[in-house]
C-alpha cells in the first residue's frame, strides 16, 4: 500500500473530498500532521472542525487565518515536528467580505457593497454553499501564505460536484447575461430589458412587500466596479484547481451511499481533467484472520468450557463482524474497479472517534 505521503510528493495543494460523515476532517488533519512532521510547512483549512479535536490541538478559537499548532503537543507523544502545522477554520462570510474588500477599487465602493442589503443576502447564500469561498481562500494561501503544502477539507456538501463547479457558477452568476444587460444598458434590447426589469421589481415588491429597488441600484453600481477583478479571481481559482501542483484525494467509508458518491466524484474529476491523487477508504471493518471457521470456533469454545448459550452468542458476534468485514471488502473491490485505483489506502475502523492528538497520530500512522 502506497501511503498518502508518497502520493503527495511534489504536490502543493491537496483537496480532500468525499460525502458527509466519512471522516474527511480528521483525515485532512492527520495528513497535514504527517506532512508537517516530515518537515513541511503545512496549513490545513477546515470548514467545521470537530470541537474536541480543535480543542485538543489548542485551537478552540480557530480564526479565518491560519494559526500554528504548538509542536509541544506532539512532542509529548514522542513525535518530533520537523516542519510546522498550521490550521484554520474557514469563515465563508468573512472570506467573501475580504475578497470584496480586496477587489474594490476604493473605500467608497467597498462600503457600498459590504453594507448593501442585497449583498448581505447574496453573500450569505453564496457563502452558505461554502465551496467558492473555500477555494478562494485556498487561492490566497497558495499565493501569499508561504506554505509548502495546503490541505483543504472540503465542505460537507451532499454533492462534491458543487465544489468543482463553484468557480464557474460564481463567474456565471456575476457575469450572467441578464445581469450584464442591467449593468451595461446599451441599445434597444437593453432599454426593453430594463423596462422588463422594472416590472419584475414592481411585482416582487407587490408580492414580498420588500422594496429592493434602491438596494439593487446601489448594489449593481458598486458591483460593476469590481467585476473584472472578480472574473480574474475566479479564473485564477479555476486554474489552481487544474494545476499540476493540485491533487484531489477522495475519502469514503465502505457504506453504500458514500461509495456511490466517491465513484460519481471520480468520474467528474476525470471529466474536468483534474488530478486524482488517491482513494482513502476510512472506517473499514477488517477481517480477523486468526478466527477459525464456525465449526472450529464452536469446538474451541466447548473445549474451553464456555457454556453453549454464551458460545452461541460469541459465534453470532464473530459472524456479524465477519459479515461487515465481507461487505467492506466487497466495497473496496468495487471502488478499485470503478475508480481505476488498484491500491487504495485502507484505514481500519478505529476504536472510538478521533478527537485528540493520540487519535490523530494513530490515524496518521495508517494513512501516511
Amino acid at each position, binding site marked *: 500500500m502506497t501511503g498518502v505521503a508518497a502520493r503527495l510528493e511534489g504536490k502543493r495543494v491537496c483537496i480532500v473530498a468525499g460525502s458527509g460523515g466519512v471522516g474527511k476532517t480528521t483525515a485532512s488533519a492527520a495528513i497535514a500532521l504527517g506532512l508537517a512532521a516530515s518537515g513541511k510547512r503545512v496549513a490545513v483549512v477546515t470548514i467545521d472542525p470537530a470541537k474536541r479535536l480543535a480543542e485538543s490541538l489548542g485551537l478552540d478559537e480557530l480564526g479565518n487565518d491560519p494559526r500554528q499548532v504548538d509542536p509541544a503537543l506532539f512532542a509529548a507523544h514522542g513525535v518530533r515536528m520537523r516542519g510546522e502545522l498550521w490550521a484554520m477554520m474557514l469563515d465563508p462570510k468573512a472570506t467573501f467580505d475580504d475578497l470584496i474588500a480586496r477587489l474594490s477599487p476604493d473605500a467608497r465602493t467597498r462600503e457600498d457593497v459590504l453594507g448593501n442589503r442585497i449583498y448581505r443576502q447574496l453573500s450569505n447564500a453564496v457563502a452558505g*454553499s461554502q465551496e467558492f469561498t473555500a477555494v478562494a481562500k485556498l487561492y490566497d494561501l497558495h499565493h501569499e501564505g508561504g506554505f509548502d503544502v495546503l490541505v483543504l477539507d472540503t465542505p460537507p456538501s451532499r454533492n462534491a460536484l*458543487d465544489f468543482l463547479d463553484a468557480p464557474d457558477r460564481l463567474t456565471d452568476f456575476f457575469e450572467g447575461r441578464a445581469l450584464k444587460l442591467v449593468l451595461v444598458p446599451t441599445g434597444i434590447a437593453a432599454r426593453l430589458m430594463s423596462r422588463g426589469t422594472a416590472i*419584475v421589481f414592481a411585482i*416582487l415588491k407587490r408580492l414580498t412587500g420588500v422594496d*429592493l429597488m434602491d438596494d439593487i441600484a446601489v448594489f449593481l453600481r458598486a458591483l460593476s466596479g469590481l467585476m473584472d477583478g472578480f472574473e480574474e479571481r475566479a479564473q485564477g481559482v479555476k486554474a489552481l484547481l487544474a494545476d499540476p501542483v493540485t491533487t484531489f484525494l477522495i475519502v469514503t467509508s465502505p457504506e453504500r451511499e458514500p461509495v456511490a458518491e466517491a465513484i460519481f466524484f471520480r468520474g467528474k474529476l476525470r471529466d474536468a481533467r483534474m488530478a486524482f491523487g488517491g482513494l482513502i477508504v476510512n472506517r473499514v471493518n477488517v477481517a480477523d484472520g486468526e478466527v477459525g471457521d464456525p465449526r472450529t470456533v464452536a469446538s474451541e*469454545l466447548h473445549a474451553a468450557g464456555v457454556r453453549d448459550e454464551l458460545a452461541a452468542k460469541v459465534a453470532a*458476534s464473530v459472524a456479524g463482524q465477519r*459479515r461487515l468485514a465481507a461487505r467492506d471488502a466487497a466495497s473496496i473491490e468495487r471502488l478499485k474497479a470503478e475508480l481505476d485505483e488498484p491500491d487504495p489506502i485502507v484505514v481500519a475502523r478505529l476504536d472510538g472517534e478521533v478527537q485528540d492528538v493520540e487519535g490523530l497520530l494513530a490515524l496518521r500512522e495508517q494513512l501516511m
Partner: protein
Amino acid sequence: MTALLDHRLVVVTGKGGVGKSTVAAALGLVAARAGRRTIVAEVARRGDVASAFDRAGARPFQEIELAPGLFHISIDPQDALEEYLRDQLPGGPIVDILARSRVFGLFAAATPGMRELLTVGKLWELAQLERRTPGADAYDLVVVDAPATGHGVAVLSAPRTFAAAAGTGPVARQGRKIDATLSDPRQTAVVAVAKAEELAVTETGELRASLRASMGLQLERVVVNALDADRFSAAEARELEPHVALPAVARALHGHRRALRQRAQVDRLAALCEQEPARLPLHPDGPDLERLADELAPQLDLAAAAP
C-alpha cells in the same frame, strides 16, 4: 399529546451521513402502512443560490407514488417559485416570462429568506387538506427529508424570519400563516436522526436547543441509526474474559466494547434530549426499507394512530 403520525408535517433532520433520508423513507412507509396517505418530500439537493436560477434540464417536481399510499417529491425552490407565481398572478404568459427571467430568479433568490420560504411554502401546500395545486389530492401526512441539522432549522424558521423582515404584502401574510402551522406542535413534529457517535449526539443536543429557541418546538422523537449488535451483558463479558486467548472470544469482546461505547453515546443522547431514543440496527448490506419500517414502527408512539 398528538401521536407522531397524527401531525400534518413530520420533519426528519440530522447530521450528514447518519441515514436521515433512509429513516425519513422508512417513517413514510410506517405511515402508509398505518393507512395514512403519505408523501416523503425531499428538500432540493443543491442547497445553494445558483440552483434558484439554473434552468438547465427539467427538474423532478412531481408527486410520484412509490408504494401504495406512499408518494415522493423533490422540492426545488425554482419550481416552487413558478408554482407560487402561477397561483398568485392572473396567469398567462407573464408567469412564464417572469419565471424564466434570470433577473427575477436572481432577485427572488436575493430577497431575504425567499428561497427557504418558497421551499417551506411548498411543504405547507402539500400538507393542506385543500390543495392549491390543481387536481391534487390531499395527504394525511407529509414527511420532510430536511437538510442537515443547521439548515433544517433555517428552513423551518424561514416564514417567521421573512414575515418579520417584510412586514406587509401577500408573502409576509402567507409567511405568518405558514409559521402558524410550523410552530404548532399539534401540526408539526421534528424527528432527529443520529448515530451513536460523539459528534452526532452533540449536534442533536444543539439542534434541540435551537429548535426550541427559534420555533418553540420540541424534538418529538430521536432515532439512533446503524447500531452495532449489543449482545453481551456485563456478567457474560466477565464470564468470557478468562478465555480471551481464544481469537473468537477476543473478537466477541472487541465487539462488546464497541457496543458499550455506543451504549454510552445513546445514554448521553437520551439525557440530552430527555427521552428514550428509538434504535435501529446496522444493516451491513444496506437498509431494506420494509425491514427498517418493521423495526421502527413498534418504537413509535402509534397509540392514537388508527385513522
